[in-house]
């Protein structure tokens, strides 16, 4: 034996994957096993450097990976078995795709020799994931595996991030790789070079600044891209330098402190009136990292500034620029790099002069626009004996720490949270924006807590949404993950009920979750009892005065705690834009169709108009 050099054992496919994941620091995996992914599960068995969290459904595994990614800013990883395991993941991939979250997902697949034979638990996942991923791969040779995993992680987390899916036949996982270097040091993707910054962008930024500084009412619109590229400091600095308002999309909550004097809040269908007013009055809109979804713009012909404002659009994805809204000045760049350059140019302009000369008149009205910003504290019950959702937000806002993370499901409760809660730090509000996926919230909250174990994570759920993935109560119990669950039980698929009330003559088809039997109103499940079945504690709150205490109890609890709040059945989240209506139109809190100009005045544009102008609000607050 003495002459024989000891040969390094060859790495198997699963060993390569484990090595790539460990070397890149991606050691938290959300997953669900099955025949075709057994080799990989076996590989990580007993490895104390890898944390494998067994969810109770593959969709949840995907959402948990997204919650983890969004809370931490890192890659989220999930894995499933072939066939039904992988098809169960599709919704989560789509959700991550529309919200540009960096996710690496891999699924087992039948052996390469069986692909195309309709083998047991075979499904064409390359075809099925194509429309909902940034990229996907089918691994056909174990020698490609290391490269593919490295490429996939790179593609998922750079440029405009998104989910990347890898289809992984079982025989490839088991095969030994004959390459000397199974994991290449460097990867070279000829067709993928995200344009994060260029000289051309720098020149465009100079033009953009000119437009903004010459404008009377320029407005900054911050989108999710500002959060994704971690550009919050730069955004705040820009607002401070220019003294112009910042409005945001719901995916950008927290990128600027809600208490910042120039932060107006979200725009769009369920946005704040003052934000929709600001954009309706704007003459220049500086949009950063947003994609102008129809929920944000309302009627495109009247967006922004009644259709008369100039639009500057900064986005790392060139395909978003000009897609929905015509753009006067396109800037293809990463939000952070663009804002750093913009701030640099402003500081250079400012030079030795103490004040920067802009034409903006916003500073005259901004204070008045931010008046009366408190969450209403409605202590009475509603006409049907329920607690007003506003009250839940009021109490939660009082108990919340600025670093706490709020995760929502989808529906009215989501919009109440986005509308009322104050966010002071980025990545503290996690919600399904682009796809609006009921069932996203609970698993995403689990992922967020795993990423940020020292932050309190509050889930705001509706009674409908929570039932889409309530089985994850077993996961939080098993893995001892603490989520403070607040279930707003209004007995309805409330958001749809609201539309039926407003637009379908109150024909509540298929939206009641409770029912009448033998003359008695019934509702199932009892969410606190459901929690008990999973070994979790909880409390049902029917008295608004007891809400605060219940929240304290949840906070003090060592494990997941369920608060079921009996909220008012008929309450609507208002104001809202009528579907298809302009950003300046709205249903007010009484459900009447109004215009934003019933509440705010057209802003003066000339010196003589300015002289006449007394107050922004039609009914000034005394």
């Amino acid at each position, binding site marked *: 034996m003495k002459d024989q050099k000891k040969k390094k054992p060859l790495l198997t496919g699963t060993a390569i994957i484990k090595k790539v994941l460990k070397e890149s620091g991606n050691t938290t995996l959300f997953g669900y096993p099955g025949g075709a992914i057994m080799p990989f599960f076996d590989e990580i068995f007993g490895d104390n450097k890898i944390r494998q969290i067994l969810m109770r459904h593959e969709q949840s595994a995907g959402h948990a990976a997204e919650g983890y990614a969004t809370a931490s800013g890192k890659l989220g990883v999930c894995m499933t078995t072939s066939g039904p395991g992988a098809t169960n993941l599709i919704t989560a991939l789509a959700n991550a795709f529309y919200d540009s979250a960096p996710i690496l997902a891999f699924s087992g697949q039948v052996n390469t020799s069986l692909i195309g034979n309709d083998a047991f638990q075979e499904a064409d996942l*390359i*075809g099925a994931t*194509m*429309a909902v991923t*940034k*990229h996907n791969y*089918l691994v056909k040779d174990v020698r490609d595996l290391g490269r593919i995993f490295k490429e996939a992680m790179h*593609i998922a987390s750079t440029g405009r991030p998104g989910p990347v899916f890898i289809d992984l036949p079982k025989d490839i996982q088991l095969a030994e790789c004959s390459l000397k270097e199974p994991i290449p040091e460097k990867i070279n*993707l*000829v*067709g*993928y070079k995200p344009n994060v910054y260029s000289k051309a962008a720098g020149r465009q930024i100079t033009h953009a600044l000119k437009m903004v500084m010459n404008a009377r009412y320029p407005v900054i619109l911050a989108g999710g891209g500002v959060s994704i590229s971690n550009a919050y400091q730069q955004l705040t600095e820009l607002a401070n330098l220019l003294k112009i308002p910042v409005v945001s999309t719901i995916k950008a909550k927290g990128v600027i402190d809600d208490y910042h004097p120039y932060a107006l809040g979200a725009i769009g269908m369920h946005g704040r009136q003052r934000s929709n007013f600001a954009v309706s009055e704007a003459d220049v809109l500086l949009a950063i990292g947003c994609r102008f979804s129809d929920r944000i713009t309302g009627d495109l012909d009247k967006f922004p500034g009644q259709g008369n404002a100039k639009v500057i659009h900064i986005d790392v*994805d*060139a*395909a978003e620029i*000009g*897609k929905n809204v015509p753009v006067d000045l396109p800037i293809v760049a990463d939000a952070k790099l663009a804002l750093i350059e913009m701030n640099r140019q402003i500081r250079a302009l400012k030079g030795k002069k103490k004040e920067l000369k802009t034409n903006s008149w916003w500073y005259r009205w901004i204070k008045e626009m931010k008046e009366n910003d408190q969450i209403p504290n409605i202590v009475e019950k509603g006409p049907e004996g329920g607690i007003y959702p506003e009250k839940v937000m009021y109490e939660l806002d009082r108990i919340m720490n600025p670093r706490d993370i709020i995760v929502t499901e989808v529906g009215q409760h989501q919009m109440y949270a986005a509308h009322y809660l104050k966010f002071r730090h980025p990545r503290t509000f996690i919600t399904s924006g682009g796809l609006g996926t009921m069932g996203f919230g609970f698993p995403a909250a689990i992922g967020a807590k795993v990423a940020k174990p020292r932050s309190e994570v509050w889930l705001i759920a509706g009674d409908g949404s929570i039932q889409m993935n309530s089985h994850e109560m077993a996961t939080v119990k098993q893995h001892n993950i603490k989520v403070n669950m607040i279930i707003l039980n209004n007995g309805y698929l409330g958001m749809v009920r609201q539309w039926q009330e407003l637009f379908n003559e109150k024909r509540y088809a298929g939206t009641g979750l409770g029912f009448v039997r033998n003359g008695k109103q019934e509702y199932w499940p009892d969410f606190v009892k459901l929690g008990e079945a999973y070994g979790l504690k909880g409390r049902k709150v029917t008295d608004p005065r007891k809400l605060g205490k219940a929240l304290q109890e949840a906070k003090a609890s060592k494990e997941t705690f369920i608060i079921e709040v009996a909220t008012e059945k008929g309450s609507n989240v208002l104001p809202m834009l009528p579907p298809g209506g302009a950003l300046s139109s709205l249903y007010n809190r009484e459900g009447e169709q109004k215009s934003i100009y019933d509440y705010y005045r057209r802003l003066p544009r000339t010196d003589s108009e300015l002289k006449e102008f007394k107050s922004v609000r039609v009914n000034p607050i005394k």
Partner: protein
Amino acid sequence: MAKAEKTPEFLVALLVEDHPGVTMKIAGMFARRGINLTSFTGASSEKKGFSRIIMKAEGDSKVFEQIYKQMNKLIEVVKVKTLLPDNAIMRELALVKVDIKDAIDRQAVISLNDIFRNRVTNITPKTMTIEVVGSTGKIDSFVSLVTEQVNIRELARTGTIALYRGEDSIFMD
């Protein structure tokens, strides 16, 4: 009656990595965005592992811009370029099999072939198979003229292929 306005079309040339499923991804992108593909050709290029794909689609400049950007986002797509009649050489090949009833038919088709400089690739007592090469317009007009004389039994067209005129090229640098 006013002539119906022709839907505008554009021609896109791609250089793509030759992976399984690439054509599906590209064609899928058009389908998903509701854009009509009128022709699609793809085969190996001068570089090993890369294919050249030429597509024609219906749409105005806004549609084209969106397609151009979306194509650029596909990881396997290395180059995307648009081709216009004045900067590109475009060709299409058609195989046309016509029914021949008698000598009159045969003579009529042969004289059309002369005008169009077509080649006859196969002939039987009852059919003639003709190879037509040229612009899409040339093939269209041959097809309509030959239909006036005889019945077309089968028609296969390759769709347009194109390269830049002169020294401009779409290749990997």
